[in-house]
């Protein structure tokens, strides 16, 4: 996997390309900052280019408060992660590819949050899915990474199909694809008969992307990606795409009992399940992954609400989480990078060797635990306010938030205390601090967690308020303050911290219990996924074994039988009416040609040597080409003759490799009869069909058009060729693309056979 960098010292310290390319996210961040003051004033930046107007698909982008909040998080995290990766990934193979994926992902993510067209949003949505697949499987020589990448792709990609279905249902109901237009017709959407179906389809897309139970299992497994990727995609940005979509569709779709009830329940369950499981693993990255599930659950819960308080809670916790989680992931990556392990049982006392990282982790974990003076505290207060004011299931919402937060506090303590406190273990004393590129991100994000916790009023006025009012109709002032006075949220906060301390104290006991329960579960969703996938592959394998059994003779028999049955059943009833008018007239030379073709056919059928059969086939082809010539189609005749010649070369190259015909056992009599019957049937059907076709009067309007326009519009007298390269050139382009692809596939098949 990763080369041992700190020990050998041979690998480069830093990847210049990565360092340089971090200017891209930085530049985008600065651009967003320039637009920031105007967005706070309520201005909206919008651009629109047509893409496929007939599908209502446009390259429409719109920067409002919500897009700005997400955009700032994406570009800021993107900058720190790129900077971090330029050191962390140094020495990896294929780094260029890595940074292309990384920045491609960032741009796709920005595309999601800035799109003003649902179909365009879906395009970016899918792009993030695919790039996530490529990034999770970046260590593609490891079977585990490939397996996890495939799992993430199947789960999120499958959910993406549901999302597309929801969008198309919305479109089929006659609603515009422009999100800003859709937002104004929210009452119509909610009243529409298709609303429940639309909501459920979009919900599945959101749940898979944002790791909601029961589609949560791919997220912890996605941790096999390199740590900068986990920090960027699977903590700070991509998994929030589902939350973003919920918030973005809020004006159009929220407010129904279905919306609120479903989201509060699913979000609450996910938050609880994620938080409980976070106690289980010893791998620090997996611990963080489960806490991410908890955060995503809480965000979904609050995205379900309709009140300003609920949305404020969602937006605030989004920021809180992005700051502390990205910082923690990067710090865990630093620990892994310096010590070679992320195992909680093998770490300890690192504060002595990595003091600056320890400081950043302290800031991040205190924010995560929600200590006063940290931004997490503000987030937790507003969360309790929002949960208590939730329209549906407020008790459940408050309970879920409380338990999840208490567990988060305990996990935060584990993350801070276990690796950093205590005596240094084993060889860890040799460990040294990471370079500045890897410290900067965690440090800045840790500091922001404190600064925002001290000046919450500024944050609420400049970030939260514009974001919430981009999606909520009533504009009222939102003020996040440090101290509300003694009220229920504050009491709940205190309860959270004490409960958290209690859980931390009993953590080993709780962990044992959790692992025992998890072991005894007879039904798990990952298990369902595994058995479903296995069953699917087995079924596909059996089916392929039947249909593609490898015998060319069987394939041809099936194809010809289907042709006889399908054409014959439609065509034969019309035959008697047609047969009367058939007339055979033409130049005498044609009759001679037909005789020649018949003789050549007889030669193919009776040949006892392959070379004779091949020669006979060539004779048939040449005869047919000459028939074309006689009946006035020189273009087709020329092409036919050339194709026949080349086919002959190819067929002889292949057939002459087979064992000689005269040595093979002659086919059984019944088989010969069967083949003869098939051939005669196919020939008769085709012949009668053709005689029928020529009796239908030809529609010459197209011909007239080409005759009139060929020279005038396309400068060519050969109509066939003008059609091919000018009037219908798009078709030709498709055809040559198929030819090239077929050749490519063919060459690879032949080469593979050769290697065997």
């Amino acid at each position: 996997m990763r080369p041992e960098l700190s020990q050998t010292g041979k690998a480069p310290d830093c990847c210049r390309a990565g360092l340089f390319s971090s200017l891209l996210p930085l530049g985008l961040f600065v651009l967003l900052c320039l637009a920031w003051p105007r967005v706070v004033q309520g201005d909206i930046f919008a651009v629109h280019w047509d893409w496929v107007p007939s599908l209502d698909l446009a390259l429409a982008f719109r920067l409002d408060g919500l897009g700005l909040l997400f955009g700032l998080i994406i570009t800021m995290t993107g900058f720190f992660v790129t900077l971090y990766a330029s050191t962390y990934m140094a020495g990896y193979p294929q780094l260029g590819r890595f940074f292309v994926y990384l920045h491609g992902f960032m741009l796709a993510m920005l595309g999601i949050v800035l799109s003003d067209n649902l179909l365009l949003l879906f395009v970016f949505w899918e792009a993030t899915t695919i790039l996530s697949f490529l990034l999770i499987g970046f260590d593609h020589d490891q079977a585990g990474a490939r397996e996890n990448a495939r799992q993430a792709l199947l789960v999120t990609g499958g959910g993406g199909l549901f999302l597309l279905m929801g969008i198309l249902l919305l479109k089929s109901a006659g609603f515009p694809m422009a999100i800003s237009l859709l937002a104004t017709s929210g009452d119509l959407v909610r009243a529409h008969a298709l609303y429940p179906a639309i909501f459920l389809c979009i919900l599945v897309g959101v749940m898979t992307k944002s790791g909601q139970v029961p589609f949560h299992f791919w997220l912890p497994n996605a941790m096999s990606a390199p740590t900068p990727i986990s920090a960027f995609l699977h903590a700070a940005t991509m998994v929030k795409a589902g939350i973003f979509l919920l918030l973005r569709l809020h004006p159009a779709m929220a407010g129904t009992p279905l919306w609120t009830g479903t989201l509060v329940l699913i979000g609450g369950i996910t938050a609880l399940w994620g938080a409980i499981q976070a106690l289980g693993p010893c791998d620090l990255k997996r611990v963080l992954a489960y806490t991410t599930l908890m955060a995503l659950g809480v965000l979904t819960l609050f995205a379900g609400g309709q009140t300003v308080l609920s949305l404020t809670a969602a937006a605030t916790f989004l920021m809180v989480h992005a700051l502390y989680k990205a910082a923690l992931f990067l710090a865990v990556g630093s620990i892994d990078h310096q010590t070679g392990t992320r195992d909680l049982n093998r770490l300890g006392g690192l504060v002595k060797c990595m003091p600056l990282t320890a400081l950043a982790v302290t800031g991040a974990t205190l924010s995560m635990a929600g200590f006063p003076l940290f931004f997490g505290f503000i987030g937790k207060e507003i969360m309790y306010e929002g949960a208590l004011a939730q329209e549906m299931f407020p008790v459940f919402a408050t309970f879920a938030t409380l338990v999840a937060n208490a567990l988060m506090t305990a996990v935060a303590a584990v993350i801070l205390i276990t690796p950093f406190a205590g005596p240094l273990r084993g060889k860890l004393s040799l460990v040294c601090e990471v370079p500045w590129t890897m410290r900067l991100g965690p440090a800045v994000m840790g500091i922001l967690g404190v600064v925002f916790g001290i000046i919450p009023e500024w944050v609420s006025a400049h970030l939260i308020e514009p974001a919430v009012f981009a999606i909520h109709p009533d504009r009222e002032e939102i003020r996040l303050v440090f101290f509300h006075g003694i009220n229920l949220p504050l009491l709940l906060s205190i309860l959270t911290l004490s409960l958290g301390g209690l859980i931390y104290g009993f953590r080993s006991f709780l962990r044992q219990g959790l692992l025992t329960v998890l072991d005894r579960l007879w039904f798990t969703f990952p298990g369902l996924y595994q058995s479903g996938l296995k069953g699917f592959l087995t079924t596909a394998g059996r089916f392929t074994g039947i249909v593609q059994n490898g015998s060319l003779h069987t394939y041809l028999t099936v194809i010809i039988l289907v042709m006889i049955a399908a054409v014959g059943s439609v065509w034969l009833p019309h035959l008697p009416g047609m047969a009367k008018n058939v007339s055979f007239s033409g130049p005498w030379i044609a009759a001679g040609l037909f005789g020649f073709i018949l003789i050549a056919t007889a030669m193919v059928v009776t040949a006892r040597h392959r070379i004779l059969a091949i020669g006979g086939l060539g004779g048939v082809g040449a005869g047919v080409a000459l028939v074309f010539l006689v009946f006035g189609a020189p273009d087709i005749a020329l092409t036919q003759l050339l194709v026949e010649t080349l086919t002959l070369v190819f067929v002889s190259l292949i057939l002459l490799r087979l064992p000689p015909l005269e040595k093979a056992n002659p086919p059984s009599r019944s088989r010969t009869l069967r083949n003869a019957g098939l051939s005669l049937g196919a020939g008769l059907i085709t012949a009668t069909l053709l005689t029928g076709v020529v009796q239908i009067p030809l529609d010459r309007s197209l011909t007239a058009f080409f005759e009139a326009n060929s020279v005038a519009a396309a400068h060519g007298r050969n109509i066939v060729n003008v059609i091919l390269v000018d009037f219908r050139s798009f078709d030709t382009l498709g055809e040559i693309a198929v030819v090239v692809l077929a050749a490519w596939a063919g060459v690879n098949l032949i080469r593979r056979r050769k290697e065997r």
Partner: protein
Amino acid sequence: MQSLVLQTATRLMVGLMLVFAVYVLLRGHHEPGGGFAAALLAGTAFALFAITEGPDQVRRAIRIRPLTMAMTGLALALAAGLPGPAAGAPFLTGIWWQAGPIAIGTPLIFDLGVFLAVLGSILSMLLCLEEN
């Protein structure tokens, strides 16, 4: 294949056939012919060459990999579609320039692309089979 008659005839024929292929390619707009037919003709010429002199000689003669040739053809055909949008017309619209008595247009480039794509595809399969 060791045959003096075939080898001598091939030396004469291959050159003639290739020149004729170019002729067929160029005349295609007015008379029977065109990129596809020309590619088949050139493919037959190279097939003859490969049978007498061996596929290695053909690879040496065409210098570039056959699949590269096919991809180049595809790219050329795509590129021939671009002047259209540049002039405000749909993709692949034929654009013509009058050069003295003859009109030269993007369909010619397109046809050249067809020629290279088809010839490259034929050659890649053919040479691979011959070497097998």
